[in-house]
């Protein structure tokens, strides 16, 4: 059901773990539903200079988290706020319909992290 791109992203996820010097964190989902995505951002002058993730969830959740961190690094925070789950899906070259919600969680976690940063600053 997963395409090669998703499986590859799952096999070799990028930006794993907790970013030591993160200044923004966003969390989406909950364990009862089987998916929690946590995004760590390091933001300097409204530019995301680094990002990482921790995820409890299925292959799609992990792949979405990984790809989303890669997508936001280098972006400014307004661009990141505009990240849509459909772009995550596109970057992963499609996703099984029942897994689309994982990409939504990725979008949500990014947004929450940026909002966390905005709230703090």
């Amino acid at each position, binding site marked *: *059901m997963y395409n090669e791109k998703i*499986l590859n992203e*799952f*096999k070799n*996820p990028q930006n*794993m*773990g*907790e970013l030591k010097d993160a200044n923004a964190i966003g*969390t989406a989902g909950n*364990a*009862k*539903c*089987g*998916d*929690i*995505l*946590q995004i760590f951002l390091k933001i300097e002058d409204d530019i995301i200079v680094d990002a990482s993730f*921790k*995820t*409890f*969830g*299925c*292959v799609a*959740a*992990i792949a979405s988290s990984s790809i989303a961190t890669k997508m936001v690094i280098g972006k400014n925070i307004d661009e990141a706020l505009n990240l849509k789950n459909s772009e995550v899906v596109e970057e992963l070259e499609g996703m*099984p*319909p*029942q897994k689309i*919600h994982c990409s939504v969680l990725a979008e949500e976690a990014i947004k929450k992290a940026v909002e966390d940063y905005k709230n703090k600053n």
Partner: protein
Amino acid sequence: MQVYLDNAATTKVDREVVLEMNKFMSEIYGNSSSIHSFGREALKHVDSARNSIASHFNALPSEIFFTSGGTESDNWAIKGVVNSAKQQVKHIIISKIEHPAVLETCDLLEKQGVLITRLDVDKFGMINLDELKRSINDNTLLVSIMFANNEIGTIQPIKEIGEICKKEGVLFHTDAVQAIDTQDIDVNYLNIDLMSFSSHKFYGPKGIGALYKRSGVKITPLISGGHQERGERAGTTPVELIVGMAKALDICAKNRFEINAKKIELRDNFIDKVLKNIPYTYLNGHKKKRLPGNINISFEFIEGESLLMMLDLFGIAVSSGSACASGALEASHVISALGVKEELAHSSIRFSMSKDTTIEEMNYVYEQLVIAVERLRKLSPLYIAT
């Protein structure tokens, strides 16, 4: 190294079974309803397959009806009892951990007005016999309780259930799909009226199964048309599949004792090793009353599917209790019914052995499992949190 530990999903067809089937596809290919010699020859083998299958369960040949598999048998048994009953109010008792073939069929019947009682199970997955007794009433047509569960391997007290049903005068159907290869089943001793099974779970081909139906029990056909299966199940008799299934069952029965013993040893060693050495792991199901080949463990802080796929990268095939493959987002209904917390329900993995599983394979799986669990926990926001 490739290790297939998903034998509860389906098994590799036995070499001897394949050879037998080839003979019927290439040589004895007649339609067993035809009265010429090609047909008679085919019929002879269908008859002897039926005899042989029946004898394994101490049933009569005329009580075996071939179907396309466990799902059809489950559907037929349940819908067949309901549709043939004349009474106004119809009541069926099942458990909460039945296979979807039973659960969804009952959901459907419920919408049509049939009353369904879904029995709880305890933390080991066992139904409560008193609750069963209390649930039976004048409208109860049928009790359908699976012989052994496909996810957690828990074996139900079939004999006791059969006795209760007999005493109360209600029919007893058991989905024995997971039990055939390892359990000794005597339908008379166990008071089973209807029993579903499926060839591909015991090293036979997919697409064939059977319903045992005690003689005298009336169920309306699900598939009508020709006169096959004594007018109860129409459709050209799939000779090659039937002889394949019969052969597979013979082979299973022959070595059952030794294979069960071997599996149980591998199973218990593996479970002990994991529970002892990998923290935050929990066995699902009953420690003793479980299928010899079934291991089901929850790995806290990890979602089952990702563990499954990580093991897959190491060449290991297992199944995750979470119903991802089916497109559902909910945790497994079986694990949930055990009363474990929902996070854990998403974290279960089933390892199901075949008769050929070796200790080397199990050791390899254990080693890779340790690595995979560690990796995924490092990635888990829940693990840090504890």
